[in-house]
């Protein structure tokens, strides 16, 4: 109830107008949405690529943060970033229990991720990526990330 009321309001706003580089792909229900983001500046790391984000909402969204991951398919790679694991899991304090505020929404998360990519110059994965991707079985929100820096 709580989540769907808020999400239907967000949805009508998203249909109305979206910031450049952000596209709504799928929002058939109030549990899972797909959004595409592009980096607009000419950052060579992200040239000509479109990234797909999957949002999963709980009943208590936006009190609880949504689960947000990059998804990989034929047309959508996982963007390079020292806070994005190669399986699409994102380590960003905004999406963490401590850093999340219910004031945020799908659009603001997309914008944050977009600007996180825009300002990045490193073609890197987080330290321990290979091991993490191989062994992690936790859901993103249950992982206790240590935020190495907050300049993202």
């Amino acid at each position, binding site marked *: 109830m709580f989540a769907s009321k*808020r999400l239907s309001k*967000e949805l009508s706003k998203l249909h109305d107008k979206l910031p450049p580089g952000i596209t709504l792909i799928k929002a058939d229900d109030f549990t899972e949405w797909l959004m595409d983001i592009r980096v607009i500046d000419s950052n060579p790391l992200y040239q000509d690529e479109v990234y797909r984000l999957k949002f999963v909402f709980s009943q*208590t969204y936006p*009190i609880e943060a949504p689960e947000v991951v990059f998804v990989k398919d034929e047309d959508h790679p996982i963007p390079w970033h020292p806070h994005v694991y190669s399986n699409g899991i994102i380590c960003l304090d905004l999406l963490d229990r401590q850093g999340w*505020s219910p004031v945020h929404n799908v659009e603001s998360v997309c914008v944050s991720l977009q600007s996180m990519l825009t300002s990045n110059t490193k073609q890197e994965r987080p330290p321990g990526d290979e091991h993490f991707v191989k062994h992690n079985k936790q859901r993103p929100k249950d992982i206790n990330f240590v935020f190495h820096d907050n300049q993202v």
Partner: protein
Amino acid sequence: MDSDDDFNSSQMSDDEFMGGQDSDDSLGDDSDYQDDVGFESQDKDIKPTKHAYEVDFKVFNPADIQSHQDKQVSEVSNILGQAPEATAILLRHLRWNKERLIDQYMEKTDEVLESAGLGETAQTHPPRIEKVPGFACDICCEDGPDLDTFAMKCGHRFCVDCYQQYLQTKIKDEGEAARIRCPGDACNRIVDSKSLDLLVSGRLKDRYQELLTRTYVDDKENLRWCPAPNCVYAIECSVKDKELKRIVPTVHCECGHYFCFGCSLNDHQPAPCSLVKKWLKKCADDSETANWISANTKECPKCASTIEKNGGCNHMTCRKCRNEFCWMCMGVWSEHGTSWYNCNRFEEKSGFEARDAQAKSRQSLERYLHYYNRYANHEQSAKLDKDIYLKTEKKMTQLQNTTGMSWIEVQFMDSASQALQQCRQTLKWTYAFAYYLARNNLTEIFEDNQKDLEMAVENLSEMFEKPIDQLKGLKVEMMDKTAYCNKRRIILLDDTAENLKSGNWEFNVQIV
């Protein structure tokens, strides 16, 4: 590999262990068991004084914890000249650091009151729910002149429904209380209890109070909750984090659970916390390499028929060819009781064999597997021993009926079972300890102690598996063995703890 071993809950009558504890907290009188159990009571070598591996601690029940808080509150309340209720808020705000609160209060009273949500404005303008024209809630996106809204001093205003939903999630789902922040983006304002009173009621408020009480223990460095499921006790121990490389502070809760005060994991003596952490991480990382080892079936080294291990004992006899061998090293068992025994020690191959990188990495894997194998095996055996005990316990009733033994008289099985559990727990961790141990002149004594305890445990484990009709005849022998196992365990723990305290061990990793 699952290294979260069972909670060794037990009603120990082991006075050796209790000896170190403050006597007013001991679990009552052991005298009922003296005739049958009485570990070491006749043994002159071991006095019931504190051992090197024991630390002082106290167990507190919920009422104790509450009265501690009340006492501190009333004490500080007198010093500050504030009402007890406000004092409690101030103390929680400064994480129960009494001295810091008094200092800060004396120095900048208004600032301290303000930051705890008790400031001047809180007195003159107490938090209240109000309707604000032109308001739109940033959480639910509702607007309208009839919407009840709330904001703390930071001005982040939301509708009451959202605020309540937010607080409910924090309290009920996330277990937060003393430090719930304002829902506003990047706002660090803590929701004070006056605001909370206004917004939540009923069971949620009770839960909040309960959690507030819990934060007292969480905030105190010398207090820790017992981690056993549903246990309500807290333990006080003065061992500090920085002492953990010299002490392994195992404490014993009133509920029967033994755990480490330093890291809350199950008792892991003799290995220090930081080695335990490293070891568990290594085991988790290498779980695939090591997986095949913990299998419950192996082939007889002589005739290759499949042998299943269904008890804790490592002395195996092949049903087919009667070959007796050791489950751990697959070596001939007859060599295990003699000076030949070297099942526990890893023999480093002489240096020239491991010249290239590949050989070196192979050798380091072999070394790891040697220790992991034994570590995992004791863990597994402890489980199997316990299974056997549970089966035996059922049969004990029969034993009482058929042999006319009294309930007290059959308690020797219970004592033996507990000794097996505790000794295997210790043995298990001796292997993690040994893995990180660099050889020096003390290592051999350690390995001898490990070997002696291991042999004693295997002997007891073997008797333990005997059919029920033979158990009565083994009673005296088993009681002796049980006492001997406990004694060997104490010797090992004393030696390792003493050397740890004096910094005599050398490790091949940094311990912090």
